[in-house]
C-alpha cells in the first residue's frame, strides 16, 4: 500500500493500519526525511527515525538526558558496528548502562517525537509493507496508534499556544531563585520539568531529562513560567548557549590533554635517550669499567 499524504492523511493511514491489526513497516517520507514505524498486530512497536535527524536518535536522546557521555555514546556506536546487528538500546541494557524501564520510556518518547514530527508534514509519501513483526524483548509495551493520534492532534492544536508563551528563538530557563515548590501540587508535566531544571538550563536537555516530548515540555514549562517559578531568557550570544559552550570546553580540554600527552611522550623519549647516553652508551660503559682492571 502506498500513496501521497495529500491524498490520504497520516491520521487516516495510522487508523487504517491499527483498525485492521496489520503487521509490517510504514515508511513516511517528506521534507527530505524518511521515518519508518514498525507495527505488530496494529500497534506501534518501534520506530526508525531518519539518520539525518540526530536529535531523534535514541543514543542522542539518552546522551542529552545525561544517561551517556559523548565518549560512551561513541564507544557504544562503535561496538554496535561489531555487535552482530544489535540495536543500541539492546546493547545499553546488556551492558547495564541503562535499565529496561528507562529504555522503554525513551523508546516511547522516540515514537511520540517521530509521530508528532510526521504529523506536521503537509506533503510527502507513505508506503506500507506487510510482514510479520515480533516486538523486541527489550522494548516496552506496544503503543496504540489511536491514543498517540489523539495526543498528536492535541499537539498540533496546542503547541503554538504554549510555545508562544516562551521566549522566541533559542532561550535558557532556570528556577526562580529562592522558590520552594511542592511538586505534588504541580501537574505531571510541570513536576517533571521542575525536577529536570536542576540538570541543565537548556530547555531541550531539560525535556530530555524529564523524558517529555517537546510539546509536553513546552506545556509544562509555560505553565511554570505563568506561575512565576522559572525564569526564561533569550540567548543573545553564541557563548550563552551553555550546551554548546560545554561541548566546546570539553573538546578543548581533550585537545589540551592530547597535546600534553604528545609533549610528554616526546619528553620521555628525550629522557630515555638521555638515560641511554648517561648509563648505557659506550662512553658511559667506559666510566663503569674500572673494576675490570683488577681481574
Amino acid at each position: 500500500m502506498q500513496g501521497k499524504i495529500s491524498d490520504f492523511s497520516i491520521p487516516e493511514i495510522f487508523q487504517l493500519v491499527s483498525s485492521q491489526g496489520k503487521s509490517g513497516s510504514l515508511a513516511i517520507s517528506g521534507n527530505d526525511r524518511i521515518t519508518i514505524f514498525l507495527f505488530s498486530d496494529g500497534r506501534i512497536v518501534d520506530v526508525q527515525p531518519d539518520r539525518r535527524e540526530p536529535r531523534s536518535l535514541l543514543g542522542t536522546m539518552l546522551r542529552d538526558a545525561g544517561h551517556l557521555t559523548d565518549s560512551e555514546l561513541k564507544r557504544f556506536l562503535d561496538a554496535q558496528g561489531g555487535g552482530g546487528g544489535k540495536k543500541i538500546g539492546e546493547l545499553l541494557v546488556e551492558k547495564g548502562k541503562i535499565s529496561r524501564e528507562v529504555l522503554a520510556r525513551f523508546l516511547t518518547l522516540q515514537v511520540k517525537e517521530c509521530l508528532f514530527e510526521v504529523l506536521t508534514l503537509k506533503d510527502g509519501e507513505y508506503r506500507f509493507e506487510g510482514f510479520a513483526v515480533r516486538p523486541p524483548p527489550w522494548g516496552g509495551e506496544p503503543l496504540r496508534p489511536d491514543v498517540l493520534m489523539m495526543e498528536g492532534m492535541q499537539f498540533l492544536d496546542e503547541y503554538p499556544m504554549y510555545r508562544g508563551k516562551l521566549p522566541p528563538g533559542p532561550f535558557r530557563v532556570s528556577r526562580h531563585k529562592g522558590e520552594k515548590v511542592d511538586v505534588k501540587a504541580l501537574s505531571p508535566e510541570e513536576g517533571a520539568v521542575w525536577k529536570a531544571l536542576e540538570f541543565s538550563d537548556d530547555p531541550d536537555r531539560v525535556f530530555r531529562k524529564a523524558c517529555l516530548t517537546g510539546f509536553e515540555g513546552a506545556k509544562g514549562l509555560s505553565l511554570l513560567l505563568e506561575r512565576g517559578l522559572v525564569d526564561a531568557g533569550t540567548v543573545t550570544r553564541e557563548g550563552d548557549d551553555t550546551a554548546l559552550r560545554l561541548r566546546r570546553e570539553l573538546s578543548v580540554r581533550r585537545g589540551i590533554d592530547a597535546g600534553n600527552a604528545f609533549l610528554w611522550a616526546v619528553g620521555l623519549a628525550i629522557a630515555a635517550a638521555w638515560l641511554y647516553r648517561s648509563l648505557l652508551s659506550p662512553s658511559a660503559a667506559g666510566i663503569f669499567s674500572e673494576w675490570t682492571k683488577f681481574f
Partner: protein
Amino acid sequence: MARYPVAVREQALRVVEAASPVPTETFALEVRTLRKRMFDYGILSLNALPDLVFDRAAKEGWKRKAYGPLREMTRVAPLSVPLWAWLVREDVLRFAPDRFFSDVGGLAGAAREFAPALPGYAAWLLMLASATACWFAAWASIVVLLRARTALTADLSRMFRGFRYPEIPAALLLWCGFAGPVLFGAGLGVCAVFWIALSAGYLRRGELAIAVAAILLLAGVFFAGGVIDLLGRLAGGTQSGEWFAAEGYLPGQWPEPPSTGQSSRPGTQWDGMIRFSRARAEMQSGNLQVAERMWSELIRDGREVAGAYNNRGLVRARLGKTEEALSDFEAAVGQNPSGGPAHWNSYQMYLVTFRLEQAARIQSAAWASIGKSPPFDFRAEEMTHGELVPSPLRAEGIREKFGLLREGGFRNAGENPFRALLFRFLPGGWGPAFLVVGCLWAGAGRLLSRKVWLHSACRSCGTLTMVARTRETADICNSCRAQVGRGLRGGEERERRILNIHLHRRYVRACTVLIPGSGALWAGKDLRAMVYGFAFCAPLGVLTVSLGGLAAGRGLLSDMQSMVAGAAIACAVLLWAGGAWWGWRSFEALQLRYNVAEERT
C-alpha cells in the same frame, strides 16, 4: 706479562702458542714447565695467561672449544677469578656436575684467597651500587614529577591568568622544566635534583621519602666516585711496578731462582709417614679438632716436628686460634730455619693480625721459602687446606696505599669519574653544594606547601582542589570519599567530572606503562613503590656495569659479561612488565574503591 721474569714470560708465551682446541701432550708439557718456572720465582698464579689463551682462541675461531686448554690453565693461574667463573659457566652449559662442584670450589677459593682481587670486588660493588643508585635517582625523580604534574600545571597556570587557556602555557613551561635540562645536556644529578625540587611541594610523605632517598643516593654516588677513582689509580699502578691489580704483587726485582733441585719432605719411618698422612687427611677433610689432636701427638712424639707444627698452625688458624697458630708457625720456623712453608704462613699471619712491621721483616725469607717449596698441585680452594696461605700482598704497599686512600679519597671526589655523569657543566666542587641546595629547596617547598594555597590532584579521579596543609588529608577529593562515582546530579558538572576521570585514568595508565611502578604511587603504595624501584633498578645497574665489562674488551671477562648483560636485560624486562601490571592493577583497585572505575557506576 711484561713485568714477569724473562724465563717465565717466554715460557708463558710458548704456552699460548702451544694452545689448541684439542689438548696435546706438548701443551701439557709446556704448562708443566711454566709452572716449574713460576715456582722458581715464587709466582703462584699468572692471571693474565688465560685471557691470552682465550683471546687467541677467539681470534682463530675456536673460542667455544677453549674449554680443554683453559682447564689446563688452572695449573698456572689458580688464582684467576675470571678463569674459574668461566669454567663454572661452561660446566653448567655442558651439564658437567662432577666438574661443576670442583670448579665452584676453585672459584670460591680464588675469590677468598686472592687478596688483590678485594679492591676489584670493592670497585665492582661500588660500580654496581653507583649504577643502581643512578638508575634509581632517574626513576624516582621522573616518577615524582609525573605524580605532581597535574597539580603543578594548575599552579603554574595561575601565572597566566590573562590567557584564554592558561593551562597551555603552563603545560609548556613545565615541559620545558622537564626536558630543558636534558636538552641542555645537564648531568643526571642536576636533572634529578631539579625535578625533585619542582615536585616536592606536591608530594605525600612516602613519595617525599623516595625523593630524599634519590638525593642521598646521588650524594653517595658522588663520594663513591672518589673511592673508585683512587682504586682505578691503584690498578693503574701495576704498570709502574707497584703491588695491586690483576696480577697481584709484582716486585721491582725478582729473587734469584734456586740453584738446587726440589727439597723433599723429611721423614724416615713408615709409622711417622702414615700418621702424618692420616693427620693431613683429617685436616683436608675438615675434621679440625681431630687433626689438631693428631698433629699435637706427632709433635709430642717428636716426628716430623717442623711439618707438624706448620700444619697444626694451619688447623688452629682455621679454628680461629690466631695467636696459637702464629706460635706454631714460629715454632716450625725455629725447627727449620732454612725455609719451608712455615715462613710464608707466619708472614701471612702477621699480615692477617696487622703486625705489618714483623711481616715486612720476614718478607724476603717468606718469598724465598716459596721457591724452595715442593711444586704440589695448587688449587686456590685447597690452599687453606694445604700447606700455604697465599696472598701476594706487600705490607708496605698496603700501608702506603691505604694512607693515600684516607687522605685522597674525599679530597679527589670532585675529580671523580662520576662528576661529568652527575654534574656536567658544574665546577668540580659544586656538586655537593648543588645537592644541599636541592635538598633545601625541596624542604622549603614542602614547608611552604603547608602555608601557601596550592593545588592538589585527587589520586583517584584527578579533580583539582586548593589546599594549604599536608597532602595526605586532601589527596582524595570529597566526591571520591563519598563514593558518588559519576553520579553527580548536575549535568554539566557531571560531564566535566566524567571527562576528568577519563583523562586522569588515561594519564596514570600511560605513566605506569612507560615508567613501571609509578601507578602504585597514585594508589598510595609509596614505600612499596620505592622497594620496587630498587628492585627494578638493580638489574639495570648490573646491565650498566656489565656493559662496562664488555667495553673493557678483556677475553674471558667480556665473554662472561655478555651473558650477564643478557640476563640483566631479561630481568629488567620482566620487572618492567611486572611493575606496569602492578601499578595498573593498584590504580584500578583504588578507582574501584572510590567508585570511579569502569566496573561500577
